[in-house]
């Protein structure tokens, strides 16, 4: 058990730092959050620069243009980019971290050829159409229908929390192809060209007053049958395959930023009780940084982060909440202004305990899959009156 970086990791870090130093100086100014065309231009330009320098697709296989880097280099890449305040993955999020890996794992040769290289170069922006108004934590209960009609599927339904819905050229779509099968067995995964007739996208105004998510209405949208990824009714498995691409680095950028914010807040924390709370929060971030190294080490050895990967989101989102509340207390009357970065971050990070599996669902998963506790009985329980 050690924490020493290998010479090859150090060499990778040095090369990346030099490239970041040279490249970040040449970037245009960051666009406003609500200027979506400018955000697309800025984020895809960054993706192209990464691609040209060989840093795109750190975890992707080489045959698809990726770097196939060991988990330790993936960790260093994210750590250094965050430390240098390099642009975030931004609008490339769904494509590079979810749709691309899914197509690589499950797509046909034609599907891969059509999309994978473009995603990696930043030439194609994707959005996600998974959740529905009545299918959130219970995602497999989704009811958007896809009915086969000759060479097409006819899709009707409503999707919500679609990240980048207003700008995505393609969407990852989950729809029900067999309403008679058990709920996990009748879902299929589709590539959804977002310019098809019958698709209406409406931005959702979030707690930040911006529109990071959209609602997507699908009214008899005719999706070509060759957009089906994997087998019909096998979409639940296809969705979960992508998760195995994650090698313990999911919260690295978040955590580097959180630690930087804690350090930036520190000079303003004078009250002894607040300073003690700051020490507590930073001790937790330090521990979670160590847990990241634990997960990455385990992934490098076994391909799986194990228990630590399951715990990370739960633990990080709670620690981040503590930092958020501390910062609001320290700002005192400064909390009135959302332009104050700590205020904006306090609002943004409220989503951490909700998005991608609420903390309550995460606790169920830990309790049932790790501790082996039984599932709660179905409601209404058999033999009881509703």
């Amino acid at each position: 058990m050690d924490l020493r970086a290998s010479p090859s990791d150090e060499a990778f870090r040095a090369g990346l730092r030099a490239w970041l130093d040279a490249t970040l100086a040449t970037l245009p100014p960051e666009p406003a959050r609500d200027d979506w065309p400018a955000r697309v231009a800025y984020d895809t330009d960054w993706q192209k620069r990464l691609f040209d320098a060989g840093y795109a697709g750190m975890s992707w296989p080489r045959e698809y243009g990726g770097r196939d880097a060991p988990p330790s280099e993936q960790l260093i890449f994210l750590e250094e980019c965050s430390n240098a305040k390099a642009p975030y993955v931004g609008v490339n999020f769904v494509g590079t971290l979810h749709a691309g890996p899914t197509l690589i794992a499950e797509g046909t040769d034609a599907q891969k050829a059509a999309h994978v290289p473009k995603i990696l170069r930043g030439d194609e922006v994707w959005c996600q159409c998974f959740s529905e108004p009545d299918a959130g934590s219970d995602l497999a209960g989704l009811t958007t229908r896809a009915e086969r009609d000759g060479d097409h599927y006819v899709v009707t339904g409503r999707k919500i929390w679609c990240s980048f819905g207003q700008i995505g050229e393609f969407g990852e779509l989950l729809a029900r192809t067999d309403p008679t099968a058990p709920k996990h067995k009748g879902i299929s995964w589709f590539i959804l060209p977002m310019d098809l007739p019958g698709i209406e996208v409406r931005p959702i105004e979030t707690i930040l007053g911006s529109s990071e998510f959209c609602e997507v209405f699908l009214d008899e949208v005719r999706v070509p049958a060759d957009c089906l990824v994997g087998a019909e009714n096998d979409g639940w498995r296809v969705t979960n395959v992508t998760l195995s691409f994650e090698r313990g680095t999911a919260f690295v950028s978040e955590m580097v930023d959180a630690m930087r914010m804690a350090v930036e807040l520190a000079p303003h924390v004078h009250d002894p009780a607040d300073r003690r709370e700051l020490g507590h929060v930073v001790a937790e971030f330090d521990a979670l940084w160590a847990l990241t190294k634990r997960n990455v080490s385990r992934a490098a050895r076994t391909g799986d982060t194990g228990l630590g990967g399951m715990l990370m989101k739960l633990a990080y989102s709670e620690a981040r909440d503590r930092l958020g509340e501390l910062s609001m207390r320290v700002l005192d009357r400064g909390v009135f202004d959302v332009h104050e970065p700590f205020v904006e971050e306090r609002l943004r990070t409220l989503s951490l305990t909700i998005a991608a599996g609420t903390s309550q669902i995460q606790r169920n998963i830990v309790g049932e899959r790790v501790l082996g506790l039984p599932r709660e009985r179905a409601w209404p329980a058999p033999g009881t009156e509703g």
Partner: protein
Amino acid sequence: MHFDLTDDQEALRDGIRAVCQGRFPSERVREGFDRETFDALGETGVFSLIADGFSWADASIAFEELGRAVVPGPLVWGVLAHGLVDGVPTGLDRPAPGAPAMVEHLAAAGAVLVLDADAVRVVPADAVAGVALDWPLDPLTPVTRVTDLPTGEVLAGADVTRWRRAGAVLTAAFQVGMAHACVEQATAYALDRRQFDRPVGSFQAIKHLLADALVRAEVARTAVHAAAVTLDDPEVGDLDRAISGAKLLAGEAALKNAKASVQVHGGMGFTWEVDAHLYLKRAWVTNTAFGAPDACADRVAATLPGGA
């Protein structure tokens, strides 16, 4: 970088765990600590790990297992003072003049190690005057209220700063083991205990309590491993910050998880018969040794800008 247990470390962990299961079941643990316990532990090699060339990371792995079994005794002092004093060692921080001082396991001890600002000093146990508490909080940790603590002799070859750091790491490791044992014991009870025609562990109110306890124990374990690795190889981090953070989180995990275990056991958790109270009481008393939680949090904060 391989920040995970090596095959040898897994074997060490399994070996110490097997020893604890064989020689320190609950009935034996409840008999308390004496010279015989000390010798039995000495035979397993846990006190001589560092002297035998093992790392602090290895020693912390062993102490995690001792904590899991809530083995009684001045175990941390057994490692720190190994080979340096005769008889069972115990110890304490030098109290401020006039302040009350408590020393654990004095009756079984041969030597009392005193951590001064400048050195470790040793006092023969029979030279320490005090009154043994007739009702100590932790029934397995007898305590003496010291009325006279002689200055003692400087212990050659003992670096007081290193002792404080290593003592904090081993205590924290012990606490992590306790925190994990509490999750395991409470989970077993939640699977077995039935109310409303179902195991109580199926209720999310119980499940979430246990899930949070597991998260705390696992995060604290990682912090302790990082602190131990940094003690072995100080160039990889900020040693005092790593140790203070680890001791803080481990102490919190031991205490909160023991309370969770009492709660999950319900009425039985309030009885002498169930082990949950032994873990809770040890969590409280170990939090007073080698860095109390608040002091640890303050020390982490002091490493940040604006600190004193």
